[in-house]
């Protein structure tokens, strides 16, 4: 390792403090914006009526479940309660699993903040893949559960 790199590695207390403050200044508007957007979603999207969109075919239910989970925001606890209610109402396990997984893996609301931080290519790829993976996981969980409980 050259001397320049070594010099770059040693950071003192005040430089660290300055760097942290700078980083917070950069990150804070994103956090406030995402929280404000979450507030809008929570107040304008009727979470308790989401199950009305389900009840189609096997694949369609998975897709709708993933879609709902992707635009939803809030504590995953809410998704468990919602998912539990949906199961009681007869919604398929595939749709509920897709909703649970996409709720915590796909972030449509925080996507602008993620693009800001890591770049559009990374954020879109990661979230796009997470969307597809939510469907695949839902299918695999369904298969595994059927296999284990049969």
């Amino acid at each position: 390792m050259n001397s320049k790199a070594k010099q770059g590695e040693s950071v003192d207390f005040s430089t660290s403090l300055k760097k942290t403050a700078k980083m917070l200044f950069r990150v804070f508007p994103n956090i406030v914006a995402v929280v404000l957007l979450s507030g809008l979603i929570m107040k304008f999207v009727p979470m308790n009526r989401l199950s009305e969109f389900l009840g189609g075919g096997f694949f369609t239910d998975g897709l709708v479940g993933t879609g709902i989970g992707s635009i939803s925001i809030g504590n995953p606890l809410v998704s468990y309660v919602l998912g539990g209610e949906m199961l009681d109402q007869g919604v398929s396990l595939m749709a509920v699993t897709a909703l649970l997984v996409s709720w915590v893996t796909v972030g449509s609301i925080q996507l602008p903040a993620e693009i800001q931080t890591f770049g559009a290519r990374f954020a879109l790829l990661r979230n796009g893949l997470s969307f597809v993976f939510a469907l695949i996981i839902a299918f695999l969980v369904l298969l595994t559960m059927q296999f284990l409980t049969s």
Partner: protein
Amino acid sequence: MNESAVKQKSGAKKESVWGAYLFLLIVICIYLVLLLFDFDRTFSAVQFSLGMLKKLLPILGLVSCFMFLNNLFVKPSWVKNHVGHDSGWKGVIIAVIGGTLSMGPIYVWYGILQELQKKGMRTSLIASFLYARSVKPQLLPLMIYYFGWLYALVLVFYLLIFSVLNGFVTERMMRS
């Protein structure tokens, strides 16, 4: 080596803070428009958001401490060795366990991950960390209560597998 130089260049490009403020400004404009159409509901959304921000402050404080300690003690050479391009499975395990144990909303962690990326953290491990956040050990008892232990176990198993896969595929697609 060339690849990391390119990454550092693109990292420097992302430094601009104004995009974040523009995003905030757009959201504030949406609120102002909505206030005209549905004052009560929009006002209740503001109150809800303020409550959420209040809850977030301790986590943000904790993450700020992590950021500070990261700036002070975590050297680029350590990052390169443990979560860098040649970190192998050790890096994957660190990212997945780190993601699983991290608290609070995902966006609170963006800043510290960006710093680690600048110090040499591998792209795939950032994606794995973010995906592994889907496993919530603290909420596991509740998941078992609602869906049963077998379902919880199967789901957590697949989430862990796919967090590794998500990182791997994201990095592959970023390169291509």
